[in-house]
């Protein structure tokens, strides 16, 4: 027993993380199209850092 609480809990978490991820990735795509090529070097920046 307790499934009626477990299922919504996992569902809400999935929707929250999934929705956040999708929205973030979409924003990333839209932004990278706007930023000029030479300013999109964040990957190298990031790789150096981590």
């Amino acid at each position, binding site marked *: 027993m307790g499934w009626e609480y477990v299922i919504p*809990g996992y569902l809400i978490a999935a929707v929250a993380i999934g929705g956040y991820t999708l929205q973030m990735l979409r924003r*990333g795509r839209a932004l990278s199209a706007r930023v000029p090529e030479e300013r999109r070097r964040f*990957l190298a920046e990031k790789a150096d850092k981590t």
Partner: protein
Amino acid sequence: MNDPAPSQDAFESALAARTAPLHTGSKSTRVLGVLALVLLVSLLAFALVITPPEVSQRDSFRLLYLHVPSAIVSLYVAFAITLVGSIIYLRKQSVFWDLLAGAAAEVGVLFLGITLVTGMLWGKPTWGVYWQWDPRLTSTAVSFVLYAGYLAVRKLDMDPVVRSRRAAVLGIVSFLNLIIVRYSVQWWRGLHQGQTFDVADTQMDGVMLFTALLGVITMHVVFAWLVIHRFRVAWLEHQADEAGLDVALRERRAEGANV
């Protein structure tokens, strides 16, 4: 490389042969992403199917495989990153740490929200009510508002440098406050009644312990993946602003020419 105002020349000369992609992914984050997905699926399998129900709490205990790890990640990892990022930003003025602090706080608040919802859903069958003035749940709710305020400051429409500095101060003071809130609330409820629930008290067999551990690892990997991507989006935003600035400067100087 964390120069707040990188010169145009430096960027042009550093234009590598490798072309930047049109999204925020990279080889390493793709590996991390696949790992996160595999972990998530296995966590679901273990948490919802493989583990047996707990002796007294039955199936509602399964919520804790999600609740506890997301609490740990947000309260102990995410906001600590925000704290460290804020301190380093104030010392070195590096945009990198400012953006990292913001990214970690945002994902941290998301996880804290999940902690709250799963906590309340777990509370209903366990306590009979959604909300019990349990020390953990209560202080989590206050912390949630605390960092929601931090995110609100980061979203203010104002001078970006001033905003970053104020947000950094807030990031440091909020952590201080997080500690005060947690201990005072625990002390408060501790006086009135014993701990309502302690993970250590429940009877967990080997599979359940493994699932709990798996949950902690999974949420950390998911968190890392989210923060890296959120950071990159913020970085792109910063670069878009900087690029817009070059244009704005040219336009501004041209204002006089046609007078």
